[in-house]
């Protein structure tokens, strides 16, 4: 089993190495290496998943990475239900996105093409390290590694200032979260003496309540950075500067869900800290609503999807926050398919329109791009929660758990958000694919993409439509499978174990969520197809709200005023002018001057006159002989 796990992790690394080191050789053929380097692990992951489904688990050490006294960190892997689900999701979605990228990136230069695939493989390697690690430190390695790849890929078109800045923004914002994450790790090590999951969870009950709360909150701070939650979500919309398949893979399907994975992985700790759970759920609900409201008015195709991702991540945190870890991870799983699909569709539109992203200029593209449009609609139906598509099952499960665990407000917020989600998704569809073409030129150049791009769309659309049905499998379905892990840990504290669909008031809840989804869709249809009420007039009437939403609540400006400008100002006026120039340069130059001063004194010894050296020798001999006499 260890061999298979190693193969899953190392094959993408080997692919990245080949493309990275020999990019001048692989050039246009980079995908011939990169795609198998993901597809083979995908197959192996399925094998591993099969084994886990039949009750096998793996938790072992491959190599002692750090071993200093009692501080021992292994490179070890943990394969259980949670990580099995994660590796299958990651490798499967990544495979199709790699294939899609062949078509999407065909305008790139030779080197850039190989570089792109190198980064992509590298990302998958780190993501698999993150989910398969059996200790927090190795997870942190993967955590930082995916952050690095994210930075590299957001800034892929680094000649563009906005792309380079977006990369930096993502990286720096993540640092803030990582700061909390690292402190949590330090605290864990200090109080439990280990970072290996097995040991940590076994001795977690020794933690006092305040300490457990502090640690879990700090861990969640890391998650807010990586998974784009309030207050650190600002980087994700800007991350759309990267190539669209990257947005699909990293910023929708896999990397941003790392935070959810981490919280689910640490469920033993979170169960000890009810307050942290409340915080997680509240932040998740707030983010879901907040991000969805910004998506309502945005006109940028990819940014709408980005806000949607933030919002859906909020849902996942609601799930894990109310104790329904399985539901949260299930939503992570289904979201990877339908959000990955929608990003790829957006990329397909963008590719056909030569980079145009403004929905105001589109319209009527259904006639030109039938496959893209239909697959996008499937994705949108899935995310809106229309049964029996994937999103319905997972989102409904989260809302159900929130409701039955007594979080009525969170349930309400989630339901309203579901309506908003349906609305903005179909607003996007109606503006893009239906109605009259608003820009004749763009409409003219639109065309359907080659099969290398459309086949991944169809495959992902198929899975977006069907993976939700896994919830109906015998034994509690998908969540029952995961609950084998989560419930073993805390003795059935889980609410409504088996899916909950057979519980008493469940039917009403399902009905409500389906109803709000259709309401959202209907409203979007009325506004953007029938123009009753006319969106323009609504905009006029609610001008202040519209402006507030359109400018994204001025959060970016707020952060600039609160954090960035003061930092830059202090750096410029204090750190640079005083600390650097006066103190640090002073020390450096002072050391240099001291050296030359001493040198000036000492070089007088070097007279260049040979007898003087003979003198030195004789004096040395006399001293040595003198020492010999004395001692």
């Amino acid at each position, binding site marked *: 089993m260890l061999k298979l796990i190693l193969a899953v992790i190392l094959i993408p690394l080997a692919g990245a190495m080949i493309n990275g080191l020999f990019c001048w050789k692989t050039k246009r053929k980079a995908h011939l290496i990169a795609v198998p380097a993901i597809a083979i692990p995908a197959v192996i992951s399925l094998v591993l998943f099969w084994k886990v489904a039949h009750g096998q688990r793996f938790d072992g050490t491959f190599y002692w990475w750090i071993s200093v006294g009692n501080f021992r960190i292994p490179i070890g892997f943990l394969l259980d239900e949670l990580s099995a689900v994660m590796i299958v999701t990651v490798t499967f979605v990544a495979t199709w996105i790699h294939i899609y990228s062949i078509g999407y990136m065909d305008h790139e230069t030779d080197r850039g093409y190989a570089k792109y695939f190198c980064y992509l493989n590298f990302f998958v390697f780190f993501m698999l390290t993150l989910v398969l690690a059996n200790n927090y430190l190795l997870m942190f390695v993967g955590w930082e590694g995916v952050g690095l790849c994210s930075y590299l890929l957001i800034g892929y078109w680094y000649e563009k200032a906005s792309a380079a800045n977006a990369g930096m923004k993502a990286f720096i914002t993540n640092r803030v979260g990582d700061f909390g994450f690292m402190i949590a790790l330090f605290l864990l090590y200090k109080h439990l003496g280990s970072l290996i999951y097995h040991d940590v969870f076994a001795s977690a009950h020794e933690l006092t309540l305040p300490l457990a709360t502090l640690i879990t909150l700090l861990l969640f701070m890391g998650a807010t950075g990586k998974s784009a939650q309030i207050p650190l979500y600002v980087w994700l919309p800007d991350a759309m500067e990267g190539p669209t398949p990257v947005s699909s893979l990293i910023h929708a399907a896999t990397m941003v869900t790392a935070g959810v994975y981490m919280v689910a992985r640490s469920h033993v700790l979170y169960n000890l800290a009810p307050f942290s759970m409340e915080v997680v759920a509240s932040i998740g609900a707030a983010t879901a609503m907040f991000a969805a409201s910004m998506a309502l008015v945005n006109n940028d195709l990819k940014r709408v999807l980005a806000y949607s991702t933030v919002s859906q991540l909020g849902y996942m945190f609601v799930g894990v926050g109310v104790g329904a870890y399985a539901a949260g991870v299930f939503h992570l799983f289904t979201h990877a398919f339908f959000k990955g699909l929608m990003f790829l569709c957006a990329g397909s539109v963008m590719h056909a329109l030569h980079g145009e992203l403004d929905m105001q200029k589109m319209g009527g593209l259904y006639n030109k791009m039938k496959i893209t449009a239909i697959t996008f609609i499937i994705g949108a139906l899935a995310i809106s929660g229309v049964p029996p598509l994937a999103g319905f099952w997972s989102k409904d499960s989260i809302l159900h758990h929130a409701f039955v665990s007594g979080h009525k407000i969170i349930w309400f917020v989630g339901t309203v958000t579901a309506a908003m989600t349906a609305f903005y998704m179909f607003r996007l569809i109606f503006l893009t694919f239906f109605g009259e073409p608003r820009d004749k030129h763009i409409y003219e150049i639109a065309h359907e993409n080659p099969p290398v791009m459309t086949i991944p769309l169809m495959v992902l659309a198929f899975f977006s439509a069907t993976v939700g049905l896994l919830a109906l499998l015998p034994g509690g379905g998908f969540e029952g499978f995961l609950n084998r892990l989560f419930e073993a840990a805390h003795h059935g504290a889980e609410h409504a174990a088996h899916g909950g669909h057979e519980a008493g008031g469940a039917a009403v809840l399902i009905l409500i969520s389906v109803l709000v989804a259709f309401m959202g869709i209907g409203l979007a249809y009325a506004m953007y197809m029938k123009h009753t009420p006319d969106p323009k007039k609504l905009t006029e009437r609610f001008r202040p709200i519209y402006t507030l939403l359109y400018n994204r609540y001025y959060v970016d400006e707020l952060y600039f005023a609160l954090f960035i400008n003061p930092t830059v100002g202090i750096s410029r006026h204090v750190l640079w002018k005083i600390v650097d120039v006066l103190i640090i340069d002073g020390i450096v130059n002072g050391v240099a001057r001291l050296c030359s001063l001493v040198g000036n004194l000492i*070089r*007088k010894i*070097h*007279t*260049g*006159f*040979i*007898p003087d050296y*003979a*003198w030195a020798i*004789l004096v040395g001999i006399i001293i040595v002989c003198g020492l010999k006499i004395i001692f």
Partner: protein
Amino acid sequence: MIPVSWIFALSVLVFATGALGVLIRKNAIVMFLCIELMLNGANIFFVGVSKMRGAAEGHIFVLFMMAIAAAEAAIGMAIITAFYRRKGGVEVDRADLMKW
């Protein structure tokens, strides 16, 4: 019989004379001669030890030292001739390239 310490005293005196010469002379050739003098003083010492112990080891070392002195003479003279050709004299204070 001659006390062995007399022989040692002679060797030390010869050696010290040579050392003094290296210290105070400026002419490279004379310095060189003084080094030979020091070697000679050491040789006397070795032969004296050999005489005292009745063993032949000291003689072996003297032979080696002679061989090394010959090698040294060859190299030293070559350096001195090259130096003379370049600087027009053999006084060591003409060699001041390495001076500060």
